[in-house]
Each structure stands twice: as structure tokens, then as C-alpha cells.
């Protein structure tokens, strides 16, 4: 083990220097600029010249009072909670299924990774076409069951569900892979003991698998939460947050304020973004806490 000598410390920090500088210049500084944006009244002209007047929390007060705030918060919560519930539920069911090794199981499990690896623009545009009201394959299939066509992307009642469905599809692989590796960590001896005690398959799942999987589940859900709060591309490409704001979340609202209009309002956009950071960080810190605690036990 390298001693904590002075020369050892020099060498250690020489290797760390690039990443430390990198974090300062490419993380800390953009974030600082973002906070600064949110505290000033920027217009396109003052954005270039850099002489925007300091307005304190005016941008924040503005967005709290904005008619979009309530719906955007609600959509963010619904999108996140529904996505997580289904991703986790389906991912867990699939993980349990795939953990009984059968012929081709490894190959099929690998194929399940595809949706997670595809560029989001690819998944989003494919889903857009599948959900097209007139020619989409989803409505054709529903029609075969006698269900009337649904205006998935163009009806305010359905747009949020459409992007949520697409997001669940994208998130299943992550949950499957992580939960599967969690299942591998449970000793088969425990199952054998439970089987000897007369526990059926269903009981074994609820009494053995589920409790033992709790640490991994907590990690998966928290990480999924942080990821889902960030989702922007998918919604923007599929619906642009519309129609009439019906699928607007904090992430798309922030983008629309800053980049989506002809006249950008960078200040309020940055303010919404900072709210999003705070939300992500709260759950991020809980995640780190849970993970640390698990590492110690």
C-alpha cells in the first residue's frame, strides 16, 4: 500500500488533477451559470452582452405563479410513479422468470436489452408512428378487439399515457438486468429449505425472494427515480409536451422556456431546471445513503 507520504500525495493528486479540473470547468461552472441565469432577467440581447439586471428570486416567483406549474408538477409525478411501478413490476416478473435457466434463456435475456440500448430518438419516433391515430399499428390491433381508435398523441386525455407507455418499455431492461443479478445473489439453499418446509412457488416468492431482494429493489427504484425525473428527449420528440401542455413535465417545460420558443426566456427556464435538480438530488442523496448503508452491512 502506498504510504501517505508527501511525494505519494503529489503523485495521487497529479492523477486526480484532470478529473478535478474537468469537474470544475464542465460541471460546476455550467451549474453556476445556470443558477446565475435563474437570478437575472435575461433577454436575447443581454444574454449576448452579459449585462442582465439582477432580479433575485423574481424568476422563481414567476414560475410558481405560472399556470403551467401545477399541471407540470402533477404530470411529472404521474409520469414518474406510473413508469417506475410498471418498469419494476414487469422487470421483477421477468427476472424471476429468466432466473429459472431454460434453453435460450441467456440469449433471450440479452435481447431484452435492446430497447434500453437504442437511441431515444429511435424509440421515440418508432412509438410515434406506432401510436399514430390513423395508420398506427396499435390502433389496428385494438380495432381487432373491437376497440375504437384512440388519439394517442393528439388527445390531451391520452398524450401523457402514451409517453409513459413508451418510457416503461425503455425502462424494463434496466430493471430486469439489475433485479436478475440481485436474484443470482440469493443462495439456492434457502429455496430448498423453503421447499422442504412445504412452501409453494407463490409463497416462496413472497416469503423468500421478495424480502431478500429488498436491498437491490430499493437501489433499483431510487436510481430509476433519478433517471425518470430526467426524461426529456422521449416526451419532447413524441409530443413536445402537448397537446396544450397535457404531457408537459418539469424537464420539457424547462426546455420549452429556454429553447422551444422564438423568444427564449432563459431565466424562468433555468429556474425550472434548478427545481428539477433539487428534486433529483433529494432522491439521489437518499440513494447514496441506502447504498452506503448496504455496503457496510
Amino acid at each position, binding site marked *: 500500500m*502506498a504510504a501517505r507520504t508527501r511525494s505519494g500525495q503529489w503523485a495521487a493528486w497529479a*492523477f486526480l488533477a*484532470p*478529473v478535478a479540473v474537468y*469537474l470544475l470547468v464542465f460541471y460546476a461552472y455550467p451549474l453556476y451559470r445556470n443558477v446565475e441565469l435563474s437570478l437575472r432577467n435575461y433577454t436575447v440581447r443581454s444574454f449576448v452582452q452579459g449585462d442582465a439586471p439582477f432580479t433575485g428570486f423574481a424568476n422563481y416567483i414567476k414560475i410558481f405563479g405560472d399556470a403551467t406549474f401545477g399541471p407540470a408538477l402533477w404530470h411529472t409525478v404521474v409520469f414518474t410513479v406510473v413508469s417506475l411501478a410498471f418498469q419494476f413490476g414487469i422487470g421483477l416478473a421477468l427476472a424471476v422468470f429468466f432466473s429459472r435457466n431454460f434453453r435460450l434463456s441467456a440469449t433471450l435475456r*440479452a435481447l431484452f436489452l435492446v430497447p434500453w440500448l437504442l437511441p431515444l430518438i429511435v424509440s421515440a419516433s418508432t412509438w410515434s*408512428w406506432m401510436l399514430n391515430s*390513423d395508420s398506427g399499428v396499435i390502433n389496428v390491433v385494438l380495432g381487432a378487439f373491437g376497440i375504437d381508435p384512440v388519439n394517442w398523441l393528439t388527445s390531451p386525455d391520452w398524450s401523457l399515457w402514451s409517453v409513459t407507455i413508451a418510457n416503461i418499455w425503455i425502462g424494463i431492461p434496466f430493471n430486469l438486468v439489475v433485479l436478475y443479478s440481485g436474484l443470482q445473489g440469493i443462495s439456492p439453499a434457502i429455496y430448498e429449505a423453503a421447499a422442504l418446509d412445504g412452501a409453494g412457488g407463490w409463497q416462496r416468492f413472497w416469503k423468500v425472494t421478495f424480502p431478500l431482494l429488498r436491498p437491490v429493489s430499493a437501489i433499483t427504484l431510487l436510481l430509476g427515480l433519478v433517471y425518470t425525473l430526467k426524461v*426529456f428527449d422521449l416526451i419532447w420528440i413524441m409530443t413536445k409536451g402537448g397537446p396544450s401542455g397535457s404531457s408537459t413535465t418539469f424537464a420539457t417545460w*424547462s426546455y420549452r422556456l429556454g429553447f422551444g420558443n422564438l423568444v427564449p426566456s432563459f431565466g424562468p427556464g433555468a429556474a425550472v431546471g434548478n427545481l428539477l435538480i433539487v428534486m433529483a438530488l433529494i432522491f439521489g442523496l437518499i440513494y447514496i445513503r441506502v447504498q452506503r448503508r448496504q455496503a457496510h452491512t
Partner: protein
Amino acid sequence: MRYWKTAIGLVLTGVMLFPVYWMINVSFTRDTDMRKSPPSWFPVNGTLEGYRAVLDQQLPYLGVSLVVGLGTVALTLLVSAPAAYSLAKLRPRGGGVLGFVLLIAQMIPGIIMAMGFYAIFLSTGVLNTIPGLIVADSTLAVPFAVLIFTAFMSGIPEELLQAARTDGAGTFRTFWSIVLPVSRNSIITVSLFAFLWAWSDFVFASTLDQGGDHQPITLGIYHYIGNNNQQWNAIMATAVIASIPATILLIIAQRYVAAGVTAGAVKD
């Protein structure tokens, strides 16, 4: 008895991958059949029109994405591998804090980074340039890369490094000729993900390179959707081509991919 599980597995995989199949199917569908009801389930009267359109219009976008992807891999490795070596083996003072900062950095939404970058890039003149995009894309990969490398390098036996030191190798030599070669697998994992994330990036491209002369493929597809709502075979053909790196990754590096997905979540 064992085969019915395989059968269920095949059905489930089929359902899950149906959108991917549909993308491929539509990419071969003729314009005239595009709005046919019911749609053709197989590309029987297939056409290559869509792919011809890709060759005519999308090649520059694909080239830009390739350059941006490779640049991101290079920058990510350059910054993260030495840092991980230090964190894993050299016990720097304050290393714990840095590791914590990296964990936090991973959780910052890209759209917020994009806004800060926009302000900085505008005043420094890097807006709409490839190097600017490479720098922004690398922020997606660097925290992940340091964490993966650190986890891996912590597992390198101390005796190996001690032997190098006894032979008179300095810290840098040890890093270059012992640690890096031994870490080959983690270098592959990190490079794969860094490339894939840069290749797939839409947030940074659409904010920092919107008016650029050199735009990546994600913007190529996005403009396509915006401009010609009718030519879905061309849009889907571009999507198929844009999916090739992910497919190659999965075929040649399956175990690295699974390792990368899990590493962030399960390992400490």
C-alpha cells in the same frame, strides 16, 4: 417439459421487441402502402427507397455522430482512467469527497447542464461546433467511467503493483504498463457506453448544435420527423441505421453491456 418455458420466453421476447421489428418493417414499406389498413405485417412488397434516401441525405450526419462518439470516448478515457487509478490505489487526501461529487454529478439532468453549457458556449464561441458537442457529451460518461474504473482497479492485487515498484517503476510507469493493460475489460465497457451515449445524445445536440453545419444523426432524424411527415420509410430506415452501433455492441460485447448496466446500481 422444459420447452414450454422456452416457448413463453420466445413469446415475451417477441412482444418486447415488436417495436423494433415494426421499425424494420416500416423502413421497407412503400410510400403507397404506408397508410394502408390493415398494414402489411411483413415487408412483402418491400422497397429500398427509404434506405436510398438515407444514403442520399443522412451520411454526413452519421459521419458527425461517429466523430463525436469517438471523440467522447477519447476524452472520457483520458480524464477518468488516471483519476480512478488514484482513487483506487494511491489514497489521495480528499478522494472520498471527489468520489461523492462524482456520484452526485451523475444525477444532474442533462437538460440543465445544456442550459449552462449554452450560456458558456455562446460567449466562448464554441456553440455549434463538434469539439463543444464532444465536451458536453463526455459529461454523460465521465462520472460513470470513474466509478466503473475505480471499482475495477480496486480489485487489482497489491502484489502486482508492489512488484513493479520493486523493479524501479514509478507511479506513472506502473499505471501505464501494469494497471491499464490489466484493466482492459473495464476500458472496453467504458468505451462502449461512452460511445453509445454520445451517439444517442439528443439533449445536447438539440441545444448546443441546433444551428451547426455539422449535426449528428439524432438531429438528422429529428429534422426528418419535422419536415416530411409522409416519408416514414425514410425516417424508419434512418432509425434502423442509427441503431446499428447498439446492435453491434450487444452482439460482440454482451457481457460487458450487462456488466455496465449492473455496475452502476449494484456494486459499491
